[in-house]
């Protein structure tokens, strides 16, 4: 007997079809170089790499949402670094008691590029790799079932918690709680939401763990893998090359062996 075709259904597009481990290594390398390589070269190059990858994977609109999500953090980075950079004396402008400096602005822009490159590399990975593909591949590589379960259920819990939050908000609203309007009102609306959310989640834990036991979760046998995702020798070599190159570049940059602009 064979598995139904939909179990092995593969995504379309060259980048999306890469093995999840390859995409994970690319995302890791991009984020690590963006953060760890000094000066402008690291973040600028990696942001370019991420944007090109996003283009190849045809991630137009979805990736914009991720980019927009970084705005609050980017604003705080720009403000703090530009106006409060320690020891900077090249004044650009004065706003009340605060002084914007050139050094601070440069540091702020660099940090912004690093954060955006990091966020988008995570976005490209998560948008091109179904969670179950990643978990299947990690499981095939020998990651324990408990670790896999924790990762999988943690990812799966987020939309379920959001759904539950919506249900609780609706029921609180139906009983007259005002959760619309000003920020303060919204914050006050969160308080009665937190209790039922936490108590509901905790009360389910015991039943959930017993349900897992009833499905052989504690069995010692090696878990059967249903999805075997295609991999290749080329991808294996590429992964190692990327990892070695990333480590070398970061070490060279941090130790000053290589001076990049």
């Amino acid at each position: 007997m064979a598995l139904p075709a939909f179990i092995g259904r593969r995504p379309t597009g060259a980048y999306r079809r890469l093995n999840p481990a390859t995409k994970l290594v690319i995302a890791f390398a991009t984020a690590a170089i963006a953060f760890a390589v000094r000066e402008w070269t690291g973040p600028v190059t990696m942001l370019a790499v991420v944007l090109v990858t996003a283009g190849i994977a045809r991630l137009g609109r979805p990736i914009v949402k991720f980019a927009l999500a970084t705005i609050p953090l980017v604003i705080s980075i720009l403000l703090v670094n530009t106006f409060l950079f320690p020891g900077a004396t090249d004044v650009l402008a004065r706003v009340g008691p605060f002084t914007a400096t050139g050094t601070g602005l440069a540091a702020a822009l660099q940090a912004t590029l690093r954060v955006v490159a990091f966020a988008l590399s995570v976005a490209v990975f998560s948008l091109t790799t179904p969670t179950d593909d990643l978990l299947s591949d990690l499981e095939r590589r020998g990651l324990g079932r408990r670790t896999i379960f924790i990762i999988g259920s943690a990812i799966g819990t987020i939309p379920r918690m959001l759904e539950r939050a919506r249900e609780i908000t609706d029921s609180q609203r139906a009983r007259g709680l005002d959760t619309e309007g000003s920020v303060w009102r919204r914050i006050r609306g969160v308080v009665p939401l937190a209790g039922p959310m936490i108590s509901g989640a905790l009360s389910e834990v015991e039943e959930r763990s017993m349900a897992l036991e009833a499905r052989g979760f504690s069995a010692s046998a090696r878990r059967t893998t249903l999805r075997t995702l295609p991999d290749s020798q080329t991808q294996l070599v590429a992964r190692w090359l990327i990892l070695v190159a990333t480590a070398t570049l970061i070490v060279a940059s941090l130790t000053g062996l290589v001076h990049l602009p």
Partner: protein
Amino acid sequence: MSLRLTDVGYRYAGTTVPVLTGVSLEVRRGQVVGLVGPNDAGKSTLCLVAAGLAPGSIGGSLEGSVLLDGRETRELRPHEAAQRCGILFQNPATQLSGTAPTVYEEIAFGPRNLGLSVAEIVGRVDGAVATLGIRGLVERDPHRLSGGESQLVALASVMAMRPAVLVLDEPTSQLDPAGTALVGRALARLATETSVAILIVEHKTDLLNGLADDIVVLDGGRVVAAGGASSLLAGDVLPAHGVRRPAAVSIRRALEAAGLGGRLTGGDGDILAGLAE
């Protein structure tokens, strides 16, 4: 014999008051036994004990003997007990693994844990899907199902473990009438098409009417009555222990008390038979 409890007593860890005392019951292959009783009678605890989860997974103190297919549950590890006895809880949402992208893979979760071959897993999943009539759900996301559908998927997931005994702890308590009917039809099919021994706790005695062969009434942690379903569901034992009779039985009794029973039964237009269904 598939499930036999003999003089079972059980106390939760950290408590001194027993929840179950001197409980004895049997469920044979192909038999459906309904377990009814008022709130706090110990029904859910009895389910955990019968499935080997108490004290196996949650601790506590067990007295007496619980035999699952001839083996004492005390001697079984949780995954061994799971292959002898499947348990279905009230809330369908807590029974899904949360890691499977499709219903098919959700049902395959248990057999995969056992390390079975892919062919064996496919056979088990297909068997459970066919028995419960949920072929149309297999490609769907398990978290985008109705309550009744989710409970059927949870039941199929348990069935895929190929247990000799099924313990169902109020499987329809959180379902709307449509979901209850859906699960009720699936249980009826399960009872007639398989030889699984089924112990079902159910407040909705209408569901037990026609499904259960025998009824056991639990009150205060003790078995206070046991016998054939037709006589117990129609008699006065259930109301005496705070359990409602099936609606069809209540209506029949009311009509009979009013002297209308004889005029409304028998023949092609048997209204009461229709109500009972």
